[in-house]
């Protein structure tokens, strides 16, 4: 299940294997049968590096539990291993578990594995609770950057943006720097570091410091990466707010992708399932699917604008049915044998096609609008087969998109927007409102005080006064704020960086703006300009964005300087501090594939986000006692 990690420009499977090896080594330390007690949050990220079946088989694992208070579930095992993040709350729960277990008869060995790092603070807490001595092994499992796909690394740290930009807690930046050091240990020193933003500066500083600290233990590896680009999320607050319009981006917007998996409503998948399990009722459990480049078709279509997906699917359908038709041409035994040998692959392709057609249909139901249908007749023929739908959901989607695009092009950003007003009046989901209002604020470099107060009052009156805290948070992070200067920089930035492209081609894109059907993500433009012609050409704009921009060079050990072949591409690692969206990833992949691009990108981030999950992470919801 990990082969896809090896195919990319940089073999990320090395990283995954290193992570698995460490895990095995730790588990080997605990001799005898074992049960793992999971900090639930970690199960997702761990799924990306090791399968349960694999661990169980290899490591004499008997049981898995979720960490919760009170007594441990009974299990006849010698070792109980806690896999936890270094959080004080969790230490209290562990202490409770251990104390209650002590009363039971069978003696057990307890172990703790901290992910990603040991914490003195936590050990201190365990000591205070009087259980530190009960642990035979206390260890750390350094899992900073998790290989997510062949060109994508994520730290899967949900709170990173909030911690860095709202709470001035730079723990995740420390982990980032550590993760980058691990990466350099495996893939060689990265000779050039570029960055923009406060956090980027901080991470670069830590990296340089750590390099000094580890001086002498350098690995003699030919550098795989030519440069590293560190980008703060807060230099581009706009992009995640916009609705992503790539296939993968839309799946994430509509259903949410967590740790590489998506849960879908089961109805559309019913028919397929029946072939296998005849007579079964309609499934009621959501269908869980893994999404990554291991699936050939998905790798092909995920980064396309949704309007181009239909065409791709129908083309694929033709190819597959043609392939199945081949059987009529197979005459000799040899030909038949060859055909049969291809069958498993073809069947996998067919079921993959069926799955994605269903997903596309689901998304279509929500997004389809007249405009879309006219611009993409293929969708009708392939997906909808003439049946047409235009209910409230899709209309809302379209209206929403229109408003977003108005804001991004700078239309009426200084006035109260009627659509937002209506949405509030109809009590649409709060996150949607916050996304839109924030977007307007960002595109206007802050809202006029009157407009700002009006929106806030509307939100408080409609959704409850407790959201005052959330509004505060948004203001602190700069997402929703009052205008402080009369000058609005956004139009200048938009024009200089060509953030809006009128004639975005969704079917056969020639520019990254296709991922948002017109809007080119600012973050990616920065990466693009950096590669060619360089940031010096946009000094003015860079000054308008928050935080410093910088360039650092790291000395390579003698003899490791790369001699570039004629026409060989550079490899750049782009690290988004505070999260990245699938659409941005798609845009970078698009740049990698451009024939005259000259640069291939590997993407790393603290977390994969979309506007909804991002805003959610910034919300404060005091749990109100009932009065």
């Amino acid at each position, binding site marked *: 299940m990990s082969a896809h990690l090896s195919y990319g420009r940089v073999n990320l499977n090395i990283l995954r294997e290193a992570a698995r090896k460490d895990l095995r080594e730790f588990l080997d330390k605990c001799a005898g049968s074992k049960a793992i007690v999971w900090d639930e949050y970690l199960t997702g990220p761990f799924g990306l590096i090791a399968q349960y079946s694999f661990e169980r088989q290899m490591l004499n694992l008997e049981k898995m539990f979720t960490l919760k208070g009170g007594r441990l579930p009974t299990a006849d095992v010698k070792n109980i291993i806690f896999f936890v993040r*270094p959080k*004080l*709350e969790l230490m209290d729960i562990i202490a409770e578990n251990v104390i209650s277990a002590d009363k039971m008869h069978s003696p057990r060995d307890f172990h703790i594995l901290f992910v990603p*790092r*040991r*914490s*003195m*603070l936590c050990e*201190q807490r365990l000591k205070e609770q009087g259980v530190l001595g009960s642990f035979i092994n206390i260890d750390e499992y350094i899992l900073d950057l998790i290989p997510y796909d062949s060109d994508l690394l994520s730290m899967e740290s949900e709170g990173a943006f909030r911690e860095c930009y709202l*709470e*001035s*807690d*730079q*723990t995740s*930046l*420390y982990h980032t*720097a550590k993760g980058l050091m691990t990466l350099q240990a495996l893939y060689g020193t990265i000779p050039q570091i570029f960055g923009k933003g406060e956090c980027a500066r*901080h991470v670069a*500083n*830590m990296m340089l*410091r750590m390099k*000094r*600290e*580890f*001086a*002498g*233990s350098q690995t003699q590896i030919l550098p795989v990466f030519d440069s590293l680009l560190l980008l703060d999320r807060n230099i581009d607050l706009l992009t995640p707010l916009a609705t992503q319009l790539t296939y993968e981006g839309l799946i994430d917007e509509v259903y949410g992708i967590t740790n590489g998996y998506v849960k879908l409503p089961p109805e559309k998948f019913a028919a397929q399932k029946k072939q296998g399990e005849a007579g079964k009722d309609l499934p009621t459990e959501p269908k869980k699917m893994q999404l990554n480049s291991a699936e050939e078709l998905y790798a092909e279509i995920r980064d396309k604008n949704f309007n181009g997906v239909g065409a791709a699917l129908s083309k694929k359908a033709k190819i597959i049915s043609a392939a199945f038709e081949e059987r009529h041409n197979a005459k000799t035994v040899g030909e038949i044998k060859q055909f049969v040998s291809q069958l498993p692959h073809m069947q996998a392709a067919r079921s993959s096609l069926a799955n994605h057609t269903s997903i596309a249909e689901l998304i279509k139901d929500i997004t389809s609008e*007249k405009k879309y*249908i*006219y611009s993409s007749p293929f969708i009708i023929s392939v997906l909808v087969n003439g049946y*047409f739908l*235009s209910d*409230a959901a899709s209309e809302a989607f379209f209206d929403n998109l229109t408003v977003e695009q108005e804001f991004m092009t700078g239309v009426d950003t200084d006035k109260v927007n009627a659509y937002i*007003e*209506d949405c*509030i*009046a*109809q*009590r649409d989901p709060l996150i949607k409102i916050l996304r839109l209002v924030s977007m307007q604020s960002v595109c206007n470099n802050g809202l006029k005080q009157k407009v700002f*107060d009006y929106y*806030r*009052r*509307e939100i*408080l*009156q*409609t*959704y*409850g*006064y*407790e959201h*005052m*805290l959330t509004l*505060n948070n948004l203001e602190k992070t700069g997402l929703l704020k009052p205008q402080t200067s009369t000058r609005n920089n956004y139009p200048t930035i938009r024009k200089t960086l060509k953030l809006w492209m009128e004639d975005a081609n969704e079917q056969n894109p020639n520019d990254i703006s296709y991922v948002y059907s017109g809007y080119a993500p600012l973050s990616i433009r920065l990466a693009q300009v950096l590669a060619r012609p360089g940031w010096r050409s946009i000094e003015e704009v860079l000054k308008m964005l928050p935080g410093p921009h910088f360039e650092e060079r790291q000395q390579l050990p003698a003899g490791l300087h790369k001699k570039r072949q004629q026409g060989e591409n550079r490899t750049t690692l782009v690290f988004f501090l505070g999260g990245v969206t699938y659409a941005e990833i798609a845009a970078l992949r698009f740049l990698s594939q451009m024939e005259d691009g000259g640069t291939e990108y590997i993407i790393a981030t603290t977390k994969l986000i979309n506007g909804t999950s991002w805003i959610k992470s910034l919300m*404060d919801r*005091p*749990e*109100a*006692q*009932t*009065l």
Partner: protein
Amino acid sequence: MAFITANWNPLGDAFYRQIELYDMGWSLRDGLKDCMVAAAPYGGPIVLLEWQSQRPSPSARPQLEIYSSSGVSMASFPWKSGPVRQLGWTVCDDLLAIQEDGTVLIYDLFGTFKRHFSMGNEVVQNQVLEAKVFHSPYGTGVAIVTGASRFTLAMNIDDLKLRRLPEVPGLQGAPSCWAVLTQDRQTKVLLANGADLYILDNTSCTPVTPPGLSPQACSIINMAVSFSYKYLALFTDSGHLWMGSTNLKDKLSEVETKVRSAPKQMVWSRRPKSQQPSVVLMWDRLLLVAGVCKETIQYTLDEECVCVAELDGVRIVGASRHEMLQEVPSACEDIFKIASMAPGALLLEAHKEYEKCSQKADEYLREIKEQSVLGEAVKQCVEAAGYEHEPETQKTLLRAASFGKCFLSNFPPEPFVSMCRDLRVLNSVRDYSVGIPLTHTQYKQMTVQVLIDRLVYRKLYPLAIEICRYLKTPEYQGVSRVLKHWACCKVQQKEEPDESIARAVSVKLGEAAGISYSEIAARAYECGRTELAIKLLEFEPRSGEQVPLLLKMKRSQLGLSKAIESGDTDLVYTVVTYLKNEMNRGDFFMTLRNQPVALSLYRQFCKHQEQETLKDLFNQDDDHHELGNFYVRASYKESKLEARLSLLQSAVDEYNKAKNEFAAKATEEEMKLLRFQRRLDEEKGEALLGLSLHDTLHALLSANYHKQAEQLYRDFRVPDKRYWWLKLTALAEKEDWDELEKFAKSKKSPIGYLPFVEVCVKRHNKYEAKKYVSKVTPEQKVKAHLAIGDLEGAAEAAIERRSEGEISTVLARCSPTTDRALLERLNRARSTAAKK
């Protein structure tokens, strides 16, 4: 060259040789007589302690002396502790002195006391009768037998776990002889009581019989276990020497020595790939080598000696000489045996002739080449060089090998090169002044790393660095490590001032990579030199490493800055918690105030753990805005309305102080709403408390409390648009169509009439919806008509507006059943609209 074999003695089909290692540098008054001696294997140090019983008065203190293998004194001091039963060395060259009362004292190589431990309370009364120090994969162990005839084992003195072994039936006092064995990862004691042999392990005492032990014996009086724990030798009072495996399953041989008295020492002499293993027995004047082949060699000893078992032979240490007795390795035998025609021997001869410029060289070479064994010849010479002690012999062999190599193509150079390197290192440590007589076999077993450690331990830093550089050991593991040890030693020199030590250390270590200054500083601190420690810490590049020591030295403020510098937030937290306990609150807060990073982390900590402290922090900073937020957050935790209101009032006060008008007003509004909700709940029994204003209004409208709703709408200045939406949805949900119509007519709708149409359609009431279509503005007409499914109406409206987009919208809604005429009209209209 001819006399290389002069000190060879045949034993069976092999030879034994004595190699002179050193003329001992010590001058001992009485030789090794009346001394307790212990020498460490692998050419380790030698310790001597005069027998205490020999002393005329108990008050006189015996002298303890430590020498290198070449007899150079390393330490000498009067023994002030209790009577010693046994001396021994640990694997890392520490001295162990096992006292009669079971206390084990540990000294370093230079006689500095390190620590002590006890072999158990029981021993104090019963005393230690005999003790042995042994080495196993688990480290250095100690075994004792007490006056109560009980054995106690400590497997590893660095991880002390005492094991008392079971009783041996019928044993009184000490056994006649005993040994410790390590077998199958278990450590056992093998002991003889008269003619009976027992194996003693953790749980049981098992009698055993060695196969084929000569029946004449009444008692086993000595035993020896080989270096590898694989072989056992037993000596009986009938003068028989039994040799076999330690598992007592196989017998190798039995030799009759014709000596009946107990030997003073008995050790195995083997080597890897031994042809003829033997046991070396030592009596007062006699040294006997008894081979498995039943032959013996006898040497006369002219002085008191001690035998030290090694991996590949036996060292014999005397008062004036230090020799190695070993089986001649086959490579050496092949080359040097008289009249040998082995390839190596021929090559050596050829080279000799070559140096004499004789053409015989060519003849010899041809002979070797004809047998095509030149490669083997070179290999033999290289290998034999490794086994030779004399540098001259080594050189001769290596030159011959190098000569032979010239006539070979693609012969791998590595063995030759690495042998040259190894020998250079070995010769330098074998030097009299260093005194580590390692053989090549031992060196390979021990590894360079350990050798470097030993040199460092002997404070031979320059030599250690020289070797690291010569072998090109990565700086991190080599030179840097040695320098660190040097620095640790340097900081203990009490007479030198801090300043000059710090300078000396930084000058020497400056460029070396991967030095841990904090370890050096920690050492300085242990010696009570805090100032020096702080100076040294300044050189530490890893700020994280500096922190624990700074805290220990009570330099917590500095520790905090360093923790922040490292970026490791956990470290910052650790220092902050430390400071919190150490300082009074005011100072603590002031310190945090100067360190914003620490402050914000501490705030996060308080937010989850100590709410009240958080408040104090905000108070101290006069951060009224955050205080306001704090009260708001706190208010939601209250389940009593009055308490919540009073907290909200505090929030209002704080917001006012912060001049945050909006927040103050919003919070006041919130309080107003809560009071209103309570009143209404009390009056009407509605459950409104806690709802948002919007939801309250909705609930009121749904419950027909229009008057109260109106009042709220006015009091809270709800925008008209939203109020209309609210009322509209509430009425439609109730399906109160009359009221809705009345509402629509009450005044001009601020939200237009399309929402009316849509709301009705949503409730599936097309009839009602139609009522409002006519009121919809022209721009929204098409949408309104479509909403109620009136395609024709929509078409009319669209055509009238001549909007291409709208016509398209309508067209898209047409189905195959749609009226042809209508379709045509639409298409026509679209093309005209498009032309414009």
